[in-house]
Structures are given as structure tokens and as C-alpha cells.
């Protein structure tokens, strides 16, 4: 595997240097809008372009620049899947799991990504090259199934296209989208836990819904496996999967097999 993409990256400057260098650009951005708050998204985008993700310092500086409470900035950033709140790989792969794409085979595409990358929802490959996320509607339903690579669209996904895309990025021939800058190798999970660190322990069942395999991880193989394994709905789902020729890839649960 060639690591060309990694070796061609430029180092990310220290945050203070970076923020100072962007001041003029930000001032011009703010001046464009009647309400300075409107400049929040462009400013956050600019920080992400420069750092590869939106760091806590970037949110703090944005809040100060626009005279907004930090909570408001964090709220805005957390709403969008196009902002990454933890260091991620150089290529962010975001596959749509919403209705139109699901009807057009997104489940298969997602299963393929998970298998080829060896990671799940909200995880980064060990070499730090790819981060993977299953996202809600990307607003390209007419070209479903679709995804974004570093926020650039790739349409009409097929299993072959997935393999070609990954190979192209790995050997450096994929040039449609530049890689994200990277200060250091990211951790495997880039899920941002809810801010309960300083807070009281929960009474019951505190879990992390976004964690891979968690209840919020509804689209991938794990979720399908859960449905297939469920004795109540397993039969119906398995029937459909057999009809569509996908049952083999999903290893239906033992009970479901026996019933057929």
C-alpha cells in the first residue's frame, strides 16, 4: 500500500499562529454580513480546512470573534455532519443511510465500506488515512446511493465504485478531492461523547448511543444483524433479503435459518 497521500501532507501550524494568520480573512468575512453571527459557518469551515477538524480552540476563538456564547458555537458545530469535532483521517468518507439511498442499496455500500476498511461508524482506520461515518440525507436523492469524500459528492455508488475509490486514494491516483490536513494520527473512534464528564452518574442504563454497535448505530451491518436475529421480525426480513440475494452476506441468526 502506498502512503503517498500521507507523505505529501504539509504540517499543520500551531493553533495560535494559525488563528493569527486567519484574522484578516475573518474580518473580511464578518464584514460581508449584516449580522456578524452569519459568519460563523464560513469561519468554522475555514478552521476545519486549516486544521483538518474543528478544535475546541477554534470554537473558542470563533465565539470570541463573533461575540457569541461558546455554547451557541458548540451547538451549531454539533448540528452539522460536515464538521468534525475530533481529529479524523485524511479522507472523511460519509455515506448516506437515509431513505432514498437505503432503497437504492446503501446498506450494501455501507457493509462493503465497513468490511474493506475494517472500521465501523465514526471510526478511523489504523493508518489514519480514512474516517468513516454513516450520515443522514445528503440532499442528492436523485443520484442515490451517494456519499461525500471530504465533503465532495460521489454519486451512484456501486460496490465496484467503492473498491475503485479506496484503491485510488490509497495509491494516490484519486485527485478529485485533496486530503485533510492532519496534525497527528487520530484515535480510532472520533465519536464525540456527550458532555457528561463532570456530571453526576446516571441512575440507570447510561450508554453511548452513537458508539459503534450502540442503539444509535442503526444503519450498518450490526443493525441489520439485530433485525435478522430478532425472532419476531427476523423471518420477514430474512425473506426479503433472500429474495434480493443478500442473505448470504449477512449471516442470519440461527433461529431465523431454522424457521426456513
Amino acid at each position: 500500500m502506498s502512503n503517498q497521500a500521507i507523505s505529501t501532507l504539509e504540517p499543520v501550524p500551531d493553533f495560535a499562529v494559525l488563528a493569527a494568520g486567519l484574522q484578516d480573512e475573518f474580518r473580511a468575512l464578518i464584514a460581508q454580513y449584516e449580522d456578524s453571527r452569519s459568519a460563523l459557518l464560513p469561519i468554522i469551515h475555514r478552521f476545519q480546512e486549516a486544521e483538518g477538524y474543528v478544535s475546541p480552540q477554534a470554537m473558542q476563538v470563533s465565539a470570541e470573534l463573533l461575540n457569541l456564547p461558546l455554547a451557541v458555537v458548540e451547538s451549531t458545530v454539533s448540528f452539522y455532519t460536515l464538521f468534525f469535532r475530533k481529529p479524523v483521517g485524511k479522507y472523511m468518507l460519509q455515506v448516506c443511510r437515509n431513505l432514498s439511498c437505503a432503497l437504492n442499496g446503501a446498506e450494501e455500500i455501507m457493509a462493503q465500506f465497513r468490511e474493506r476498511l475494517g472500521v465501523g461508524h465514526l471510526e478511523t482506520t489504523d493508518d489514519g488515512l480514512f474516517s468513516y461515518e454513516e450520515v443522514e440525507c445528503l440532499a442528492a436523492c436523485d443520484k442515490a446511493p451517494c456519499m461525500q469524500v471530504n465533503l465532495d459528492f460521489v454519486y451512484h455508488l456501486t460496490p465496484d465504485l467503492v473498491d475503485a475509490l479506496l484503491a485510488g486514494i490509497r495509491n494516490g491516483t484519486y485527485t478529485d478531492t485533496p486530503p485533510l490536513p492532519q496534525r497527528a494520527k487520530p484515535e480510532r473512534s472520533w465519536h464525540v461523547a456527550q458532555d457528561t464528564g463532570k456530571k453526576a452518574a446516571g441512575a440507570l442504563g447510561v450508554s453511548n448511543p452513537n458508539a459503534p454497535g450502540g442503539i444509535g448505530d442503526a444503519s450498518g451491518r450490526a443493525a441489520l444483524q439485530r433485525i435478522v436475529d430478532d425472532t419476531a421480525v427476523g423471518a420477514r426480513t430474512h425473506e426479503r433479503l433472500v429474495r434480493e440475494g443478500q442473505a448470504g452476506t449477512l449471516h442470519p441468526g440461527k433461529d431465523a435459518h431454522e424457521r426456513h
Partner: protein
Amino acid sequence: MTMASEVHLKIDGIAVTVPTGTLLVEAAKQAQKHIPVYCYHEKLGPAGLCRVCLVEVEGMPKLQIGCNTVATEGMVVHTQNAKVDDGRRAILEFLLLNHPLDCPICDKGGECDLQDYVMAYGQDSSRVIDGKESKPKAVDLGPTIVLDEERCIVCQRCVRFDELITHERSLVVKDRGAHDIIATATDQPYVSQFSGNVTELCPVGALTSKTYRFLSRKWDNHRAVGSCAQCSVGCGINVDVRQGAITRTMSIPEDVTSDGWLCDRGRYVISFGDDQRRLRTPLYRHREQLVQVTWDDAIGLWAQALQASASPQRVAALGGGRLMNAEILQLQALFRSFGTPHLDWRVGRSQQAGAGRATASLAELDRAQAIIVVGVPPSQSAPVLDLAIRKAVFRHKAQLISVGPFGAGSSVPQQRAARIDEVAGLLPDGTERIVFVWDGIDPQLGREIANLRTQWSTHGRSAGVLVATTLSNAWGAEALGMHPSFGPGYQPLASSGLDTAGIFAAGRAGELDVLSFHGANPVLTWHDASIVREALARIPFVVATDLFLTQTSELATLVLPVASAFERNGTMTNLFGQARPIEAGLPVPDGALSDSEVLVALAQALKIALPDAASLTSLEERALEAARIAPLDCGAEQLAGRRLAPDRPGLQLALAANVFAGGGTTAHDTRIEALRPLPTATLEPATAQRLGFVAGTLVDLHAGAASVKNLTLRLDASLAPDTIALVADLPQAPANLLFGSEPLRLEATRVLEEVAA
């Protein structure tokens, strides 16, 4: 085409006429039809988030949301039919998708809109076969609030309260879709003086008060409806009591004075009455020890001391600012009948409580073009008044000017003036309606306000005045005769008695035999602690009526346990000059008496006739009426020309207020530990840099031989330069030890490790 001012429409067949622009949810109230709502709130407006208010509007293909659809001419609306019911049922099923249905252990059970509407409009079973979203159940949002993220339906009432009412914007929604939660900025707790209101706004059991969690069910609470007696605003409150203890206080949404909000002091300082340290029997000092005596003996000893005094001129009484109006009238009647002229309510820093006919109304404050906050801002002393100021500033674009060392609340845009005479220059031309909000502390400032008003009145400017303090019935005490120069209703007396300063001076000179404090703690609150202590040491018989052994009552000869404001009925006069009803939620505890009963017993022992209940009521009415037309500076007459504090070279001392300071109720309420202010000294950053201090340093502050120790240094850019601010009335760091003209000396004792590292 001109817009009609009214529109006519039919709601469920009932014809209604409403002003143009009325929302369907409000119009339906006129037809006596109920439209369920979660995100909509009268004071927060529509948000269109929850969709439970669906109604059918004829001619519109889909169901419409009643909260954000404006009534138009000829509209035909159905709030109840098969289509609407179906829509609502679907919305409720959706809201319950991830709801834990843990009603049996939920504090909201029995008063929960989700529970009620699902019973009324929902279905009785779920079609969901998947597991529910699991989220943290007890997130510690801040010192007062716990969030159950699973119960939350993300109506955002709390977020909008924080944005539209307090303008603090510390609560937000984070994440998206099924994962979204109410949150603060990372690692920042939800800290607000008004935090408790979100628990009342929350239509489900997501936001709960730490003080009320798992404490009671709605139907087990008995409710007393009255007013809060914890500052001079007098907000309407419901006091909920279960098994002889207050479980919570709640706001009254229709209450005009508070606009339906409560501050955290009014909401959370409720448990002091049950404290172990509460006095349950009279105490008499015998051989330097306070020993228990019976009430008969206690009253007898007091009467004996009064009768043994060589002259009523050698007797004085102080306090009254925490008593009921009727009790104040009894108090002054008793001592004036006895012959003593030395009565004063001023035992803290406040020197004037009423503004007479200059008093602004709440409506005038709301409509003011400019609000001028002079001295300690109401954000520190009377928080709900600050909400009214924020409303005027943000909603009606009033200009806010703060005069003095403190700003008027950090979340509000304002102009700063060092002195009152700078204010006129900051007001734009055409500013006609002005309201002063003054702390009543420095009589010099009071005179300047009065002068400015007179000057402005010839230029067509009208300026109202509000005097805001933490003392709940200061104006009542002043207007009803606890004043050395006035009887009830500011009636001038033939000869004036000594005021508080004079009483302490006389006490120190050995000229007083008996001094009684009525709900007063001047050792902690009078601006000079040393003179109070010296006076108490010289006066042979000192009486204190109090709930606890405070800094003052522990030095008294006779301590009489009395009832709190939660334990007796009556009225108090708020800063608008209104008599606010106080309702007893609890009985007077065994062993204690109300102040009124104490005074009646003393009067009997002295064979003095006190006015009866009927004449007290009419006297109160007449006196308050006279107070409302009295001149602005009536209460301050005695103090003309006197400076409160001598000039001090160098660093100036500024005393901030805090509603959780004090040595009485707040100090004895164990459930508000996290809200009580820490001993801090605050400097403006440039001043701190010049003096060579960094934030987090542990400092001692000295003036001459006196010192206040172990203050944590904080920096605040809104503080005036060359000023050091301490919180007044703090038992562990009494700032009134530093009174005087000697220069202040700041000494670092230790730099806190985390700051130094």
C-alpha cells in the same frame, strides 16, 4: 389597503373575534377550546417544534400547527375532529418513541403535560418493536438543575428562556435528530440566578430541581399562595408544603410583579426553617452563658429592664425591615407609647427604602427609554427586577446606563458612568421617559438623583425611581414609623430620636440601657462592625428576636425565637410601594412566637395598649397611601450632608451584594451550599496587573489593624479600576471589618496550585 384591527373566525363552530395577528392557540382560548402545546409558551412565543398543537383549518390541505398559524378573517378551524385526533395521536406516538415512560419514578408525574396529553389524545399502547434510545438519566447540569436526557422532548422552552428572558444563552441544543440533547458549553455548568425557572417551563420531567428530586408528589403538597419575602420585589409565589416541611416554591404565571418568574433565592432558600440550629426557646445570658428560659420569664425580664431604665431616652429599638407591615406598626406604637424616640429600621447599608411619589411603576420601567442603575445593581440584590430591566433593554430597546463601580449585569449591553453628573451627557436627545434604579445606600447619590429629576422636569423629562434592596420590607419599615423622625405615613414628629448611627454612638458612650433588635443582624450588615460590637458590649440589656443565633443575637442578653415569613400571615411593602400578601405555609414552630405575639406580650407586661387588628389595617392603608405621595427624599432627611464612609486614599473598597449572603436564613439553609458565595476579592484586570496580582491568588485584605482573610482573588473587567470589590454580609469574610479611612493593603498568602501551574 389598511389592515383591519380585528378578524372574525370560527373555532369548533364558535364565532370569535380576535385582534389581527392573534395565533390560533390564543384565539382558541376565547372559544374555551383547549389546544395542547409543548414548545409554545405565552411568554416565549411559538417555536413550531413539537407539532402537538395540530388543528384543521378548512381550505388547507394539511393539518396546521395552532401555535404558529395566525388567525385570519373568515377562517374555520377545528380543534377536535377525527383528522385532528389522528394527527395528534401520531405526534404523541412519535414523541414517545424514545421516551422512557418512567412516570412512577419521575418527579413530574401528576403534573406532566406529556402524561396528561397522552392520556387525553394519545393511544394506550406502543407499536414500537425496536429498543429505545438510551441516554444519560441524571446529568448534573449545574448547581441547581438535573437533566434527564431520555425524558426530554426537545421543546427548547429552557433554551428559549435562556435566550429570550435572561439573555444569558448558556443553554443550547447539541447534536441532531434522535441524539439531540439540552446542553451547556463543554465543561461549563449551567449557572444562572434564574435557573429554577426552567424546571417549571419544562413540560416533561427532563429538568428537575435538585432540591425537589424524589421529595414529593404534586397531590401530596398543600399549597399556600402568597408573595416571596426574600427581597424587595415581592414576587408572587406558591409555597408547597408536605408533612410540615416546604418542598418547593413555584412562581405564579399570572403575577404581574414577577412576570411569572422567580429568582433562585426565592425558589431555593426554603429549608432554613427545619434547620437543627433553629431557636426553639428563649435564651437569657446568665453568667456569660446563654441559658434557656420560659417565654413568661423572657418577657418579664425584658419588661423589667425597660422599666428599670432611668428614662425612655435610654432605650432604643432597631430593625423591622423583615417584619410584616402590621408588626412594624405594633413595634413603633409600643416603643413610642413607652416614650422612646430612638427607632430606626436602617441596620444594613440601605439608608433609604422608599421613593415616595417618584416611585416608578413596573409599566413605566417597561416603557422607559433609559434606565439608569445607580450603585449596587439589582442583578445582585433583587434579581427579578433585573429581568424586567433586561426585558426593557432587549425587547423595547431601552438604553441602560450604570453608575458606580459595578456594571448592571454582564449579559446586558450598557454604558458606564463613574458619576451621576455624567449621565445627562449619555442620554440622546428626545429621551423623555427615564427610570432610576438605586440601591438606597449612599444618601449623596440619592440627593443627586433628586436634583437631576427636578432639573429634568423643566425639560419635559420624567424620571421615576425604584429603590432595590435585598431587605424584603424596608419600605414598609420606613413608611410605617420605624424611623427616628417620622411616624407612620412619614408624619413628622415633634422631636427626632437618634438614628442607627446615633444609637450605636450613644450605646458606646454608655447612654443606653436597653437596645432591641427586631429581625436585624447589624454586626454583620452595618457598614462598621466595630462600633456595633463596642456598643453591644456597653449596653446592659440587649434583646434580639431572630430565628437563629446570628453574629448579633449571639451577643445579646435575651434572644427570642420568632417565626419566619413562611410561618405567618401579613403584608409586606415592596419596592413599588404595594402591600404584598404573605401567606403562612407552615404553623409557627413549637417554642417560637411570631414577632407580633412577642410585641403583644411585652405590651401587656408594660401595660401599654396596642392598636387592635382593625385599626392596624386601616392605619397601614392610610400610611402606605401617604408614603406613595411623599416626596422622594423623605426617608433620607436625617442623613443630609452625611457621608457614609470617610475618604480613603489609594485602593477603594466597593461592597457588592449577593442574594445568598447574610448570616440568617441563607446561612442556615443546608440545601443551598452550592449557591452560597465564596469569599472572593475582585479586581479589574489592569489594576490587578499594576498591583502585581493574578487571578486565583489567596489574599488577605487589611485596613489598619483589621483584616479580612482567605479571599480568592478574581478578575472582572466590568469592575471600575483602582477598586477592590468584596461581597458584603458574608459571615466568613465580613467586609464591614474594613470600615474606615485607613488605606487598604492587599497581601498574597498563597497562589492556588492549579493557577500557578
